[in-house]
């Protein structure tokens, strides 16, 4: 029981990692990028290719694809999203859906149906574990969880305390007025897409390190990212982190109840949060809401 909980939290770290890029793009650009999962798989293949060809550690290869994915993000914004957003709310959804299908099929043509994994390139690290209170905790999942915390924390700090972060928030809040104070909304959108794609590169790599992937694995990754984002509430990145953990816990509870219940448990939790968000005051889920309530009570007292 305790073991499943710990494993779920570690898995939740991966979900948070894959979700944060999706949520970031939604928060900043109001775009739901349906090609998110496919782009993560593309990154995983790129890392695999580089690792295999140059006999490098996957941890080095991922650093090499970060700039590649950043440029892909910039192009995605300039060539596709910028035009699509001019055509209304639905068009970006349709175009990124189309892009996802194109990427999946290109990957299938290039790499075939075989599953791949990055873990063979890790040596001992792929199975090494810490023993804590009688539980065996894999080093790699811990690394992924810590990476998620570092990336989400880093993005959060950038958004809060740097000029770039302020400009990103201002553009998200009111793009017209952002222009009037001198913010180049186009530049900001490009940078945001590049940042989101760098997180995608890292999460694709994390997927490949933790297990296996194939050309059509993008769909499920998108689904996990989307579910974690909705559960956590798209408005804050730490919320999304919690969303990833809650999703993973729901999945493992599902698996305890029934051997086939892993995915169902997650979907069930997702639906509960989705309906609750639609029918109740969405604030109820945020930490801030409860904190401010407590402050009000204290002030009143």
């Amino acid at each position, binding site marked *: 029981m305790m073991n499943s909980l710990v494993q779920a939290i570690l898995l939740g770290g991966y979900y948070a990692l894959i979700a944060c890029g999706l949520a970031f793009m939604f928060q900043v650009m109001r775009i739901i990028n349906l090609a998110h999962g496919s782009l993560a798989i593309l990154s995983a293949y790129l890392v695999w290719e580089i690792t295999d060809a140059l006999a490098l550690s996957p941890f080095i290869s991922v650093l090499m694809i970060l700039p590649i994915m950043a440029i892909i993000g910039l192009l995605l914004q300039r060539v596709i999203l910028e035009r699509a957003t001019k055509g209304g709310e639905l068009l970006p959804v349709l175009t990124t859906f189309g892009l996802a299908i194109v990427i999946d099929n290109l990957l299938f043509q290039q790499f075939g149906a075989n599953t791949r994994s990055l873990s063979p390139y890790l040596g001992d690290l792929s199975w090494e574990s810490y023993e804590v209170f009688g539980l065996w905790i894999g080093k790699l999942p811990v690394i992924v969880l810590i990476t998620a915390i570092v990336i989400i924390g880093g993005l959060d700090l950038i958004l809060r305390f740097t*000029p770039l972060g*302020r400009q990103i928030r201002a553009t998200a*809040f009111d793009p017209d*007025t*952002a*222009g*009037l104070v001198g913010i*180049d*909304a186009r530049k900001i959108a490009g940078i945001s897409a590049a940042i989101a794609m760098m997180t995608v590169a890292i999460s694709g790599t994390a997927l490949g390190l933790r297990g296996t992937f194939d050309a059509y694995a993008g769909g499920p990754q998108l689904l996990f990212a989307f579910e974690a984002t909705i559960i956590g509430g798209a408005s804050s990145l730490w919320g999304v982190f919690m969303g990833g953990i809650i999703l993973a816990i729901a999945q493992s509870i599902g698996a305890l109840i029934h051997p086939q219940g892993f995915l169902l448990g997650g979907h069930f939790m997702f639906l509960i949060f989705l309906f609750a968000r639609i029918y109740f005051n969405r604030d109820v889920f945020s930490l801030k809401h409860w904190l401010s309530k407590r402050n009000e009570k204290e002030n009143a007292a």
Partner: protein
Amino acid sequence: MLSVSNLDVRYGQFRAVQGVSMNIDQGDIVSLIGANGAGKSTLLRAIAGALPIHSGRVSFKQHDVTTTSSSALVKQGLSLVPEGRRLFADMTVEENLLLGTTVKRSGDWSIERIFATFPNLVKRRHAKTGNLSGGEQQATAIGRALMSNPDCLILDEVSLGLSPLVVDQVYASIDSLKDAGTTILLVEQDLERAIRFSHRAICMLEGKIVLDKLTNDTNKEEITHAYFGLQQSKHQEASQ
């Protein structure tokens, strides 16, 4: 400094600004006057690059800026304080002001000078602008524009929704810009104040300029007539 010729701005088929031309020199203080819906905000937003221009030309410092984006115009020294303040409500006063430095134009304005100019903001420095009073919000909006060290400042409805006392304070702070040689174009509903404060009054009616005179050469009556479009009817009465 700022020159507009034959400007047309449309919302779909509707011509909100029609054939407007005007010339504003360096250091001019100009009041734009007109009834609700006359097209003042539309004109100012189009000049500032926040609305597409249907036809006509805008030039700023001898360069054509008809199709220049709003952010590029801020960089060249033209800032608009939009109607309704349009602050970033979930950010603090300080963060809103810092956003004004995005273009990194050099000049005299710093955060500390803004707080010296608008002392009412000092204790609100770290408050979210969504929770401020109207006067504090207006001061923040003006401060945010000043942080870009503009050569030409455009203010849309400075005094809307403010108490007379606060309006005086706001005008006193804009007054200090006059001495620095900043060109100012502002929308003011209070005619007396507009005449007192500015060198020139431009009156708009239904998207067109119907009066453009130095404030010394005109008076409240003449502007009021232009404001309501009474000039023609007076001529008609006279000819009858």
